[in-house]
C-alpha cells in the first residue's frame, strides 16, 4: 500500500450529468477500492492543475463508483465543468467525520439545505432512506434560487417525495411561470411543528448565510445547540489536520469536521464567513 498521504489514487470520470446551470454531477470510478461514510469528503485532483474538496453525493453503499456534484465557483471547478468523460482525476481521502447516522436512530431527522449544499445532503438522505424504518421520519426543506437551480430534479420532484416516512417541501427565491410552490428563503418553509423538537436532530448544509439564518431559526424553535449539525465549508488544502488552512478555533474542519454540532463551534469568531 502507498503510505504517502498526499498521493491521490487514480480515478476516471465516466459520466457527467448537467444538474443546473451552475452544477454538474460527475460519476467517478476510483481505480482502487474506495469507501466513504456519508458526510466525509474527498480531495479531487485535476492532474497538473490543482485539487479541491468535495463531499460525494452518492450513497456510501455504492462502492464501485461515486458521484460528486460540483458547482462552478472558481478555477478548479471551472476546469472540471469543462472536462469530458474519460478525464483522469486523482482522489485523496475520504477525510473527516461524516454524519453520525447511527445516533439519529429513533429520531426525526430534519434536513435543511440550499444550493449545492444538497450534494452532501443527498448522500445522507440516501443513507437514511436505505434504513428508513430506523428513523421516526425524514423531513426535508430545500431551497434554490430559481426552479432551474434545483439539483437532482428527477428524483427530488418525484420519487423521493413518495417515500414513506419522508416529507419534502421546496422553495425558490424567484419563481418562474410554472412554479406553484412557495417563494421565499428556505426558513420561510420551516415551521415549529415540522418535527417534534424534543426528539429530532437538525442537519443544515448550504451557503453560509443560509446556514446562519437556518441555525437562528432552529434555536428559536427550541432546538438545543447540540441538536444542530452543520457542514462547515472552509478553505482546505491537506485534508489531514496539518496545513492549518481550515482551522475554525481549535478545530481542524478537515479532520474534526466537516460536520459539527453548533455547540462545538459557536464560541469561535466568524464561523459563518
Amino acid at each position, binding site marked *: 500500500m*502507498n*503510505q*504517502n*498521504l*498526499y*498521493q*491521490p489514487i*487514480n480515478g476516471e470520470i465516466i459520466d457527467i450529468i448537467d444538474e443546473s446551470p451552475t452544477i454538474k454531477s460527475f460519476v467517478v470510478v476510483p481505480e482502487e477500492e474506495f469507501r466513504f461514510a456519508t458526510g466525509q469528503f474527498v480531495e479531487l*485532483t*485535476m*492532474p*497538473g*492543475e*490543482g*485539487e479541491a474538496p468535495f463531499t460525494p453525493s452518492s450513497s456510501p453503499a455504492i462502492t464501485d463508483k461515486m458521484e460528486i456534484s460540483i458547482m462552478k*465557483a*472558481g478555477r478548479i*471547478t471551472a476546469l472540471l465543468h469543462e472536462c469530458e468523460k474519460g478525464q*483522469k482525476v*486523482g482522489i485523496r481521502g475520504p477525510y473527516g467525520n461524516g454524519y453520525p447516522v447511527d445516533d439519529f436512530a429513533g429520531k426525526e431527522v430534519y434536513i435543511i439545505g440550499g444550493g449545492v449544499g444538497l450534494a452532501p445532503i443527498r448522500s445522507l438522505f440516501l443513507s437514511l432512506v436505505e434504513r428508513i424504518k430506523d428513523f421516526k421520519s425524514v423531513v426535508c426543506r430545500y431551497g434554490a434560487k430559481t426552479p432551474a437551480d434545483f439539483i437532482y430534479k428527477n428524483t427530488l420532484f418525484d420519487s423521493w417525495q413518495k417515500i414513506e416516512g419522508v416529507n419534502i417541501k421546496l422553495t425558490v427565491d424567484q419563481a418562474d411561470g410554472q412554479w406553484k410552490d412557495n417563494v421565499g428563503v428556505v426558513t420561510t418553509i420551516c415551521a415549529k411543528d415540522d418535527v417534534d423538537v424534543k426528539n429530532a436532530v437538525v442537519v443544515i448544509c448550504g451557503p*453560509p448565510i443560509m446556514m446562519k439564518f437556518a441555525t437562528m431559526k432552529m434555536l428559536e424553535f427550541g432546538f438545543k445547540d447540540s441538536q444542530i449539525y452543520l457542514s462547515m*465549508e*472552509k*478553505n482546505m*488544502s*491537506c485534508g*489531514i*489536520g*496539518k*496545513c*492549518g*488552512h*481550515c*482551522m*475554525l*478555533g*481549535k478545530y481542524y474542519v478537515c*479532520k474534526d469536521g466537516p460536520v459539527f454540532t453548533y455547540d462545538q463551534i459557536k464560541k469561535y*469568531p*466568524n*464561523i459563518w*464567513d
Partner: protein
Amino acid sequence: MRIVFLSDLKPLLSAIAAQMDLYIPKNAGTHYVYDRYDPSADVPVEVNHIRVCTPSKEFLFPLRELAAVFPEPLEPKEIEPFAVFGLKDCDLRSIEILDKVFAEKEFEDPFYVKRREKMFIISSDCSDPADSCFCNVLNGRPFAQSGFDLNVSKVKGGFVVEAGSLKGEELLKTNSELFSKAGDDVLAERQAQRAETQKQLEQNNADLKFDAPVNEIVENGQDSDIFDQEATTCVECQACTRVCPTCHCFYLYDTKKDDYFSKMKMWDSCMRIAYAEVAGGANPRKILGDRLRHRFMHKFSYFLERYGVDMCVGCGRCVDAEAGDVDIRAVLKKLNEEFEREGKNKAKVGK
C-alpha cells in the same frame, strides 16, 4: 548517559562527517546560517552563541518539496542519514512540536518522518543570549534539556560532550579515542555557565512576566482590540511565520510538464490575506487583526489544548525578522496587562 571531554571539535565533526552529511553554523557577521561541513576546509569551527537565523524546520520540512506525482504514485524516497550541529534548546523544543503534527499516528507525513528518523542532532549550549531571546518565559532553557543525540558545551580548554540518545552514546563509544574523562571541574564550569546564561536571560526579560499561565492570558484577551491595534504596524511580510521554527502551515499545489503531473507541498502563512478565503470570497479572517489574533490563539491556546504544549518556544526569530513592528513579546505584555486589569475589575465586582 556518557559525558566526556574533548579538546578540539574538528576531529569529532570530521568523524561524523565521514559517516553522513553534516551541517554546521557559519558566522555571517550579524547572524549565523547553516553550511555544509567540509573537513578539508581550513576554517575554524565555532559554537554559535545563539540559534542560527534560519529556522531548524528547514531540515525536516523544506520550503518546497515534491509530495505526489501522477499517474504513477510517488513512494517517498529513502533519506540518507544527516547531522546538524548547533541546534539550541529552542530548536529542539520546536522539533518536538513539529513531531506532534507531522509524526502523528495515522496521519504521518512520510517525508517528514523519514528525515526525522535520519537526523542526528548535535545541540550546543547558548552563551550571551540575543536581545530577542525570551525562551526562559516559555519553559525554555539556554541549554538542551532533551531531544538531542549529542550536546556540546564549551568550557575552558575544550568542550564537554554529552550523549542524549542511544545513537549519540554509540557515536561516543565508537570514537572513544577522541575523548577523555570529563572531570568534576569542567562539569562544574558547565553548570556555572548555564546558570550565568540563564540569569542573563532572566535579566533581559525581567519585564516580561505573566500573572497566569500564558494560555489563560491570551485566551482572556482574545476579544480585545490589542490585536487590531498591533496589526496596524504589520506590513504583512509574513516573515514572522517563515522564520518561526514551529509554524508549519503549508499548501499543496499542482504543476505539470508535458504529461508529467506533480503535487508540491510548500510553506504558507496564516498571515496571508487569502489564506482562509474560499471560492466566492467568504473569508473568516479577512481582517489583519483577526489573522494576528488567530496566530496567537493557535500558538498559545489551540495547539496547547490539542497537543499539550505551547506552539511558541521563545526563540525570538520573528522579533528579529519582522519588517513591520509587531513584537510578540510586546503583544504578550499588553495581553498580560489587560489580564491584570480585568482581574482587578473582576475582583472589584466580586466585592
